[in-house]
């Protein structure tokens, strides 16, 4: 390694007289250190030597209380991590700070997502992430759309490093990057560290492993008890002298101008895990569910795509498949018992019966994604229904839309209130929302007053759950939706193809559009069959179908295409990673609770509409538990990080189908309770077993 010239020009980072005191403890004292660009500076020292404090001062986590920091020749003050990032300083912590539930691209851009007209620009981010990874020759990834949780330790470390260098960073600080890695993976990461320096970045490497240090470092800085005892070119040190300096602060052996003790790893040397020669193109099939723009590389055909899909299902990424199978099974069982179960009239009833659970559940998904729980949603919904009911009473007589908006404002406010208590006061969500469950029931009863039941005189509100579109209206609406879906899918594919990204096979896209069109047509056909009593025909699609659909699309969009949705997933995956990425946890959490309150309000209005009244008999406690069950049955995790509004809709169908079928058969309450319990257990067990299979096959 040629000795760099640090004579005339000042190094990238120069520390002079740096000190930091924590109470009586002098953690750092009078540290003078130069960090030149294009070199790896290893920071070594025993435990408690002050390595962590030093890098935290550089990264803006601590503010030094003595000394000067010069960056590119200018004195600077770094008061927080954001200011450090702005200068081009990035830290890769020992525990990596990656979100296991996000894919490689999502992790690399976490906190700095690119937007296009306010929405996430996935294509551009995917391209940049792929480019960065191939520049750094991180080549062992099968896809940049792979979840990070499925990667090996070395791959994860590589992603963390790559993430750090993406942002025009000039100094990358690596804290024990190889501590948890095996031999081959360590080598892979050390190669990466070397390449960073060779690309002109300054690198600070903290490591306990002197073999690694001498393998990759150009310079050494040795700390002992907060003092810099020695620093200089790596060639001036050998392991024995280094250990002496680390432990005693003195060295018996003179500076060795001999050869480095360990042969340096050079980028040209073939490396175990990295592919030889120029980095091959990173394949990037997108394996998202459920409406995945999936593909197995531009060359992959339809059959290969299907095989890839099946492999993922077998590996546990089954998506909504178990719940779909469950719905079909439940339908078959009830149909065999009573042939009216699958009659058009009953299916329409089922859609309306499940709508309240689906709606409230779609809001609950956001809270569950964070790894939190909201037990109050049932009564938040109850208050929503009550407020809307009260405001259309003859003595107040607000127009229906104003009453609905006011009700939604109130329920959002309740969600925000609870979210604020949970985030700002750091109270556990279980307790806060349990208090909400009790308190909101009280408020609801107080609002309803002595009578206990208040009828809704407004026909439009009553029609939300009871009215229907005209048969023709149902067709028109469905055709518009299918055309929009087809258009959005085709344009999305075209954009990706134009950007050179992997696209799902064209046949599959067409198949999806056709399937969507058929599903829409089936719903319309079922809805348009006469289900009325003799002499009073009733047909048409209930309004709740488009209402549920609009909320589903809106919330899916929010979750999948906006920063908010991305951050909700990130916090659920790893709150610490999200915090380090600069995400405001409190704001996102409060917003998620607010959103859940808003959605519950919609559900509550539909509940009230279905009964054309609001009553103190409203069983919000059971609803709150059932909505959690709907989301979880659909595939949302109770522990955060995994979930989708679609899960609540599918889970809502399951719950509604069970209740519907058993009421159709006229089973006794005892049997109904036991059977519901069994179905709940079975559906969760299937889901968990399928996913656990995935974890063990990984």
């Amino acid at each position, binding site marked *: 390694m040629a000795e760099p010239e640090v004579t005339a020009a000042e190094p990238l980072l120069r520390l002079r007289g740096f000190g930091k005191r924590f109470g009586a403890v002098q953690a750092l004292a009078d540290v003078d250190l130069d960090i030149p660009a294009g070199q790896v500076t290893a920071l070594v020292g025993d435990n408690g030597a002050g390595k962590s404090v030093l890098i935290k001062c550089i990264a803006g986590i601590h503010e030094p209380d003595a000394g000067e920091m010069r960056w590119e020749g200018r004195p600077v003050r770094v008061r927080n991590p954001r200011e450090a990032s702005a200068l081009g300083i990035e830290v890769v912590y020992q525990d990596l700070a990656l979100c296991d539930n996000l894919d490689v691209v999502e992790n690399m851009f976490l906190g700095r997502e690119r937007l296009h007209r306010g929405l996430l620009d996935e294509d551009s981010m995917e391209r940049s992430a792929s480019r960065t990874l191939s520049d750094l020759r991180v080549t062992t990834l099968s896809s940049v759309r792979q979840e990070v949780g499925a990667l090996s330790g070395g791959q994860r470390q590589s992603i963390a490093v790559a993430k750090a260098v993406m942002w025009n960073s000039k100094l990358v600080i690596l804290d024990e990057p190889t501590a948890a890695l095996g031999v081959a993976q360590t080598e892979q990461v050390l190669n990466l560290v070397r390449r960073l320096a060779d690309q002109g970045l300054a690198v600070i490497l903290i490591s306990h492993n002197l073999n690694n240090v001498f393998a990759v470092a150009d310079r050494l800085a040795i700390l002992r008890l907060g003092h810099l005892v020695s620093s200089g070119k790596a060639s001036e040190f050998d392991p024995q002298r280094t250990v002496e300096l680390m432990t005693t602060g003195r060295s018996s052996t003179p500076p060795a101008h001999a050869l480095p003790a360990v042969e340096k790893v050079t980028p040209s040397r073939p490396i175990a895990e990295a592919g030889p020669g120029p980095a091959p193109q990173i394949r990037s099939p997108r394996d998202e569910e459920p409406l995945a723009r999936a593909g197995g590389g531009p060359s992959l055909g339809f059959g290969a795509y299907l095989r890839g899909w099946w492999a993922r299902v077998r590996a546990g990424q089954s998506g909504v498949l178990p719940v779909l199978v469950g719905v079909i099974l439940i339908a078959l069982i009830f149909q065999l018992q*009573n042939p*009216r179960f699958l*009659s058009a*009239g*009953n299916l329409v*009833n089922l859609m309306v*019966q499940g709508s*309240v659970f689906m709606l409230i559940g779609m809001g609950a998904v956001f809270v569950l994604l964070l790894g939190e729980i909201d037990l109050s949603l049932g009564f938040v919904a109850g208050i929503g229904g009550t407020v809307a009911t009260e405001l259309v*009473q*003859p*003595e107040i007589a607000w127009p229906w839309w104003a009453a609905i908006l006011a009700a939604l404002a109130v329920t959002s406010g309740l969600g925000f209130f609870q979210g604020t208590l949970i985030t700002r006061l750091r109270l556990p969500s279980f307790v806060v929302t349990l208090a909400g469950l009790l308190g909101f*029931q*009280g408020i609801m*009863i*107080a609002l309803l*007053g*002595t*009578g*206990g*039941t*208040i*009828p809704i*005189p407004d026909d439009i509100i*009553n029609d939300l759950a*009871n*009215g229907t579109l005209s048969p023709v209206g149902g067709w028109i609406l469905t055709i518009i939706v299918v055309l929009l879906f087809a258009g959005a899918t085709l344009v999305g594919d075209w954009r990706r193809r134009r950007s050179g990204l992997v696209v799902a096979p064209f046949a599959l896209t067409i198949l999806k559009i056709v399937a969507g069109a058929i599903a829409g047509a089936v719903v319309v056909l079922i809805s348009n069959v006469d289900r*009325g*009593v003799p002499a*009073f025909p*009733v047909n048409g699609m209930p309004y709740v179908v488009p209402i549920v659909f609009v909320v589903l699309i809106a919330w899916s969009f929010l979750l999948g295409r906006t920063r908010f949705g991305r951050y909700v997933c990130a916090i659920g995956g790893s709150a610490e990673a999200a915090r380090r990425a600069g995400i405001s946890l409190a704001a996102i959490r409060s917003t998620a609770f607010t959103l859940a309150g808003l959605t519950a309000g919609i559900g509550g209005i539909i*509940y009230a509409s*279905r*009964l*054309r*009244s609001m*009553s*103190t*008999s*409203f*069983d919000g406690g*059971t609803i709150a538990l059932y909505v959690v069950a709907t989301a979880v049955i659909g595939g949302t995790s109770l522990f955060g990080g995994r979930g989708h509004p679609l899960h609540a809709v599918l889970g809502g169908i399951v719950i509604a189908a069970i*209740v*519907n079928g058993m*009421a*159709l*058969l*006229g*089973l*006794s*309450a*005892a049997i*109904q309770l036991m059977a519901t319990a069994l179905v709940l257990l079975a559906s969760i067990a299937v889901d968990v077993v399928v996913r656990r299979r995935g974890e063990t096959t990984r």
Partner: protein
Amino acid sequence: MLELRKWCRRSAEVLACAAIVAAAGSAALAEDAELSSASFTADFSAMAKLKPVVAQGKGKIGILLPETTTSARYTAFDEPYLKKAFQAAGLPASEYIITNAQGSESTELTQAQSAISQGATVLLMDPISSGVGASIESYAKAHGVQVIDYDRLTLGGSRAFYVSFDNVSVGKLIGEGMVACLKDWNVAKPQLLVMRGAPTDNNATLFAQGYNGVLEPHFSAGEYVKAGEPAGTWDPATARTTFEEQYTAHPDINAVVTPNDDNANAVISYLKTLKVPAQRFPTTGQDATLTGLQNVLSGYQCGSVYKPIYLEAQAAAALAIYLRAGVQPPAALVNGSTMDSQANSQVPSVLLTPIWVTPKNMAATVVKDGFVASSKLCAGKLEAACKANGIGK
């Protein structure tokens, strides 16, 4: 009495005579004051008969109400009605203590103990739960204080009396109301769905016992067909689903026995969705809720059982006054008994008979009592129905 006095005027032994008259007079006083469970009215006039009994007694009456949250009735109706009943009987306000435990069992026990230490000799208690009720009763017993269970029975308790509406007669009124309605609305070949309240609620069983007793002869005579008896619930959303599914399974159903107004309204909401016209499809209910009464007026519900709380309050106040005076309450007042299934004993009870409210007697009952405001009842589309039935101005 009159004859006795006439006889006395003729008699020479005036003094002896006066003594006899006085003795007979006090006997007659007791006879006049003899209340029955049917004596009470909306104007509280029957309470005045208790003035002599009030004068005989001493000590305080402690009234323990359970809560304000899950039901507003205690503050809106029970408390004012009890006060009015005591006032009408001439019991000064210093002689009774009304407390509300706000839903806390420990508060209710504390309030009971404090009432006793303030000199209460009789407790009138609506227990939050049978558990706290039983512990209050054993504490009272140890202090020589008698307890009356008000509205809710303490299972496994040791109280002297119980005051409530007769749940079986509530059910009977529902059954009889349905029978009359099927005729009035000309329902041909009635196919009845018989719904009921939650299986966990003993009252639901008693209601069902009442209406089934009325309907059973019609079923066995082949006059009506019982289409089904689905699982019971008090949750209106579940009730609607239950009805939707039973109606899907048995499309011939043309009448539903619903156990309360909330359940009836859930069924009616679906019937309206199916565009079923008024006075075609009978349903029943109880509680005389605003929603229920509007459904009655609009011809979707036959009637609603109204349980005037002033009846319950007067009966309870009367019973407490008798106990305070150490007088055995008349048998016509304590007109029945209720089974305490846990203590396995019959509790002497004042069982009040509620009122079946139809459009015809709505003005004279719920509206007159101020149980619902006619302005709320008659809002919007129901103005004409109200006018036709003499409700409101």
